[in-house]
């Protein structure tokens, strides 16, 4: 028999215990899918600031954190919420107003960097990006380089050190974030994690991070999740905090549980256009609701039923996504 562990906690306790101002944070999920929204909203409620985000393609969660003024710098490959915001409005504004510092990479490069961090590699090489401005231009100032978690070099282009005829390669610094935030479908009581559908780079992010917070649709008995270990994604001892959060990725999707919420994302698109209306969004949707129960009451039954996933398909067929 497995026993309940002290890893299971509220979003408030997880954020208070594990997230400090200035931390480097990897956000799990991808644009409109499995963003750890419940934890992100708690980070905003706890007014964490100067956060240093490291992501591949984000996403609704990144938009919220930037808009709420929690973010100081970002290393990323892509900032958008798919068709609802081809470029994230709050990301775009913060970039143009220079209220955040941004360093651009590609998705593969960011994924390889998490992987290198997870594997303890000093650097990792790819052919992706040769001759581009990704290898030639720098968003972070030279004075900042090498300070705190900012790598000494964004990357370097070198001759293939192994194969004489290999030509140039791009070598990238590893990432070891202070915290990885993941939203998963299942967590065992001891922390074994199961992600259904695509895992994006969540597994690499979690393995690379010093601290891992996982919110989940369901906490299940550890012996239950271990009956089918082939389907599990992360070993229990990698995870530091489990936050039960049904619909915890809303308004982004969670495969087999719910679709993305077009109503909410279209509404968000409108409010994200200016800071005043975005602040009202925070007052309406973020600050008042510390628990998922209260938040979901606000979303309402009707909209939750609309996005409820069909258990054969994993999404909501016929959902009006205009």
């Amino acid at each position, binding site marked *: 028999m497995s026993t309940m562990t002290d890893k299971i906690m509220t979003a408030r306790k997880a954020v208070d215990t594990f997230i400090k101002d200035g931390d480097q944070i990897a956000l799990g999920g991808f644009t409109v899918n499995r963003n750890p929204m419940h934890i992100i909203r708690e980070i905003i409620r706890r007014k964490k600031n100067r956060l240093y985000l490291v992501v591949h393609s984000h996403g609704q969660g990144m938009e919220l954190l930037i808009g709420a003024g929690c973010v100081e710098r970002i290393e990323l490959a892509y900032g958008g919420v798919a068709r609802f915001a081809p470029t994230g409005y709050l990301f775009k504004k913060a970039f143009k107003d220079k209220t955040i510092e941004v360093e651009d990479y590609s998705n*593969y490069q960011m994924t390889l960097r998490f992987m290198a961090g997870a594997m303890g590699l000093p650097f990792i090489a790819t052919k992706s990006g040769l001759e581009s401005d990704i290898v030639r231009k720098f968003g972070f100032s030279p004075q900042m380089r090498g300070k705190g978690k900012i790598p000494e070099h964004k990357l370097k282009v070198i001759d293939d050190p192994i194969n004489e005829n290999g030509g140039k390669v791009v070598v990238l610094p590893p990432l070891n974030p202070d915290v990885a935030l993941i939203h998963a479908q299942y967590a065992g009581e001891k922390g074994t994690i199961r992600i259904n559908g695509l895992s994006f780079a969540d597994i690499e992010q979690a393995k690379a991070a010093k601290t891992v917070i996982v919110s989940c649709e369901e906490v299940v008995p550890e012996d239950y999740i271990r009956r089918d270990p082939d389907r599990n994604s992360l070993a229990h001892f990698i995870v530091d905090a489990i936050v039960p959060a049904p619909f915890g990725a809303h308004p982004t999707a969670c495969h087999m549980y719910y679709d993305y919420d077009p109503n909410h994302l279209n509404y968000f698109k409108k409010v994200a256009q200016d800071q005043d209306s975005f602040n009202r969004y925070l007052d309406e949707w973020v600050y008042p609701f510390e628990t998922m129960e209260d938040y979901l009451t606000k979303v309402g039954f009707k909209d939750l039923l609309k996005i409820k996933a069909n258990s054969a398909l994993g999404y909501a067929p016929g959902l009006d996504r205009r």
Partner: protein
Amino acid sequence: MEPYTASEIMALTAGSFVQNNDILFAGTGLSMLAATVAKRIHAPDAIVFFETGGIDPSLAELPLAVADPRVMVGTSVNSCLADALSILGHPKFRTIAFLGAAQIDCYGNLNSTMLGTYENPEQRFPGSGGACDAASLAYGIIVFMQHEYRRFVKRLDYFTSPGWLSGYNSRQEAGFLRGGPMAVVTNLGVLKFDDITKMMYLDQYYPFTDPETIASKTGFDLDISRAKKCSPPKEDELKILRQEVDPQRLILGPI
């Protein structure tokens, strides 16, 4: 008024480049349509995969994002970014990537990152995502563009994704193992790249426009001497696109 829209002819034209055994790297928007419609019309065995890790999904409903849960259904494998992006450059596979961009130059190099500079930013786009990876590693890329003077530029504000670099053998000399843009599909026509110089030329123009108009909307000198008029989309193909692929006109937009 034509009986089809620019986005419809773009999706069908881009789809026609797909061969039956191609492995297609699809992004959002029109590229999703082109890949999906090609599979339904003439390339049923073409494999569509997404950088997020959805490998060969059934695509019963049109995904709106590469991370849409609709890319996770009926797949051969549900995996992850590391897995999907490593397929791109695999020498065993003819991987074709569909990409869009804010700016393109005469060698098919792309900008999807910004206008202006980091110091003096004028406009921000989402960034590379997997575009730079696809342009660097895939067997070939097909680019979607809105054909506007400000988008077909002499010099990119930011060089996100490598095309033919500065033409001739420069791509190979830079250290790339393969790849390069095969075609640019715009709302006015199809552009290709000269075998030797790797410079863009007009290959086809849609029935509702002409080569001179296209040249006037291109910010660099465009060779229009090889241009042919493209035939209009076939009715049965339009029907598949409208009724099966994008019935809600989520990507096609209003008629």
